[in-house]
């Protein structure tokens, strides 16, 4: 039995840390619901407190950079950029997990290595290529880029997941005359729902949160995603904290909701791939 006193101390320390950790979030939230004048004198001052939703309305319908448009664009890009690499990646992962073919291990290793590639390493040729193909400054170009860039970790994750599935069911189906694609589609995918949830949650969040690819691939403000709008609201000498805070709260709300709803899968996606390795 531990002495009671230490337990109390540990609890106090833990909750103090939690409090310290949440202060920046609290700050940006408070700034989003108060007028500018009350923010610059400190959001923690509560003597004069005017609750307002005006900041949200203002950024949502901003005359140069409406966040409403940014949200639509972010969804238009993030949803297909989640679905495409999952479909394409699970197919490839299944191939790596179940089939034998020459160069398989070398190919797989190459894909794994690509996982640590910085975004900067591909962007110049992608910029030139998509310009040539008329895909630059379009949703389609950015969707394809995100789909391809997400593939390495998705293939790795699913390959590691598929090899843990029992092979007997698939073999039985094979004897019954099912094709490889039917087995993948009707047996393997449905039994992989938890893994699919993990990957979907993470990939969607990463694409939603991405800034660098969007910065280079989307040039006209009416196609900008939400993460591009936030820095654009910041003037050179003047920072409208009320508007930036409101835009930040709204933009981070989406991944936070995904995380809250799919927390178990989200965490599994992060530690599952890496711990077992």
């Amino acid at each position, binding site marked *: 039995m531990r002495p009671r006193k230490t337990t109390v101390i*540990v*609890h106090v320390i*833990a*909750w103090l*840390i*939690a409090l310290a*950790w*949440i*202060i*920046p979030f609290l*700050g*940006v939230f408070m*700034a989003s619901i108060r007028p500018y004048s009350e923010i*610059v004198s400190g959001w923690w001052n509560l003597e004069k407190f005017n609750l307002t939703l005006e900041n949200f309305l203002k950024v949502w319908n901003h005359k140069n950079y409406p966040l409403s448009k940014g949200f639509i664009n972010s969804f238009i890009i993030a949803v297909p950029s989640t679905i495409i690499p999952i479909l*394409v990646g699970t*197919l*490839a992962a299944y*191939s790596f997990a179940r089939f034998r073919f020459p160069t*398989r291990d070398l*190919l797989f290793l190459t*894909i794994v*290595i*690509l996982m640590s*590639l*910085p975004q*900067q*390493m*591909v962007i*110049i*040729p992608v910029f*030139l*290529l998509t310009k040539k193909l008329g895909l630059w400054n379009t949703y389609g170009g950015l969707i*394809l880029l995100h*789909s*391809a*860039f997400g*593939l*390495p970790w998705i293939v790795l994750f699913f390959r590691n997941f598929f090899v843990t599935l029992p092979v007997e069911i698939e073999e039985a189906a094979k004897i019954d005359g099912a094709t*490889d694609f039917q087995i993948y589609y009707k047996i393997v995918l449905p039994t992989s729902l938890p893994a699919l949830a993990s990957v979907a949650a993470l990939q969607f*969040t990463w694409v939603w*949160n991405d*800034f*660098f690819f969007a*910065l*280079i691939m989307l040039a006209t403000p009416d196609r900008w995603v939400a993460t591009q709008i*936030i*820095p654009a609201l*910041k003037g050179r000498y003047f920072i409208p*904290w009320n508007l*930036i805070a409101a835009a930040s709260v709204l*933009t*981070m709300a989406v*991944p*936070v909701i995904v*995380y809250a709803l799919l927390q178990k899968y*989200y*965490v599994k996606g992060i530690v599952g791939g*890496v*711990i077992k*390795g």
Partner: protein
Amino acid sequence: MRRNITPLLFLFPALILLITFVLYPTVATIWTSFLSWRGWRSTGFAGLDNYMEVLSRSSIINLRRSFLKGPPLGALLHNIIWVVIHVPLSMFLGLLLAVLLRRVKGGFLIKSVIFLGMVIPMVVGGILLRFIYDEHAGVVNAMLRAIGLGWMARTWTAYPDTALLALIFGSVWIWTGFCMIVYSAGLEGIPEELYEAARIDGASGFQIFRHITIPMLKPATMTNLMMTVLWDLKIFDIVYVATFGGPGRATTVLALEMYLDLFFKIPSNPGTAAAIATLLTLITLAFAIYMVRVAMVRK
């Protein structure tokens, strides 16, 4: 016969995407770094000229400035400083929190809050850092004033001597949640019998931690080390939003310098931008391959 073609068919869409948007661009970036450019038009082979030019820039390595004087020391050194400070701090805090919060009521909730830094866009992370360090609106300065250090209050990201450190400490706040979650998963994987056996043998709490917990957490430590270093090397969004590399390049990093060469210099210089990207990739890959090899030898 069919057996031979099926694996390829399954791989085909993935390979097309990877070759077009990842593999070919990687090779083309290397090629670009060896050419000389006038704007977006290449004018011939340049050998290592782009690399020489980049490495002799004071914005990449500031040799004229003594290290002790602090930033701006150049993007490459800033990235290294970032790794040297951020990695041990985040990993230590992550381990501490993972161990501490196991026995705390509501620990799950606290963990979720700390992990939020990993969930939000890094653009918002950068905004949050700029906000907490603001002279008037920032909570950091409010705390300094509260404990009688009001004379220190200033916008910490606006001065060359404090901006880089301010961002690095801020990035600890953002990233610690990742290390904590990985360590938590590692802790759960340690069988309870090990602890019991040690306790029966009369081991102290510290001995158990030192000789059971730490060694058993080795895979988690390797993961955290690798992911944190890679994250630090690739850092871009936070710097772009919070300081744009300033003041006076005091917070610039490699990824940002690459972006500036490409879209901020007039005319653009794809050659030097590609050289910076290639250098960044070489550092990243060298570290990643080293870590994977260490991990494989352990198995």
